[in-house]
């Protein structure tokens, strides 16, 4: 398995777990309005986010290799295509989330400020997760069956 694939799987697992913890944490006890006023939940999420980054950098450290060719032009091509795909997915996510919130809160005329936390965190998670999935898909497309 290439270093690129190892890191894509690691990134997907780490940020997938953080996202799956963030969603119930955010939507429990009053949703966006409740979250903005609950310092304990804001702090818990900040710790979770920090832990996610610590794990992420630890994973990058563990998957480093000093010997031999670890990345080449095929990896560069995969990363380039995956980054483009992830950018489009993240932009589309932000666009659709914005429009959805606009439609929901159009009549009241204001938006609970807690949604800004959701925007910030979820955009980061979606960016990492979509990039990892795109890398794994591109890698699969550009892979042959290895000889024994």
């Amino acid at each position, binding site marked *: 398995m290439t270093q690129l694939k190892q890191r894509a799987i690691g990134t997907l697992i780490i940020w997938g777990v953080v996202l799956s913890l963030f969603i119930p944490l955010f939507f429990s006890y009053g949703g966006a309005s409740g979250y903005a006023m609950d310092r304990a939940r804001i702090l818990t999420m900040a710790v979770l986010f920090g832990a996610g980054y610590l794990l992420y950098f630890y994973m990058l450290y563990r998957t480093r290799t000093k010997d031999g060719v*670890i990345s080449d032009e095929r990896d560069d091509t995969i990363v380039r295509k995956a980054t483009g795909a992830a950018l489009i997915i993240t932009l589309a996510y932000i666009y659709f989330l914005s429009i959805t919130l606009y439609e929901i809160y159009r009549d009241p005329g204001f938006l609970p400020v807690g949604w800004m936390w959701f925007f910030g965190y979820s955009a980061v998670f979606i960016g990492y997760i979509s990039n990892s999935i795109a890398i794994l898909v591109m890698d699969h497309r550009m892979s042959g069956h290895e000889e024994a």
Partner: protein
Amino acid sequence: MKKPEIKNRIRRFRFDNDEMTQQELAEKVGCTRQTIVALEQNKYVPSLTLALKIAKLFHTSIEDIFEIVE
């Protein structure tokens, strides 16, 4: 317009050169074994640089190794 397919005879050249392994070829041209695997199964089209390195290693021209299938 349909994208032309690039096929190659890397596998043939490897066997004709003392049954060179994919790993050996990868190390000699500076890429990963996975790239050689993908190349041999026409899942990846190499850059001109890599194609030239492979051709040079086998003492032949690019046209002898790679061909466009319309």
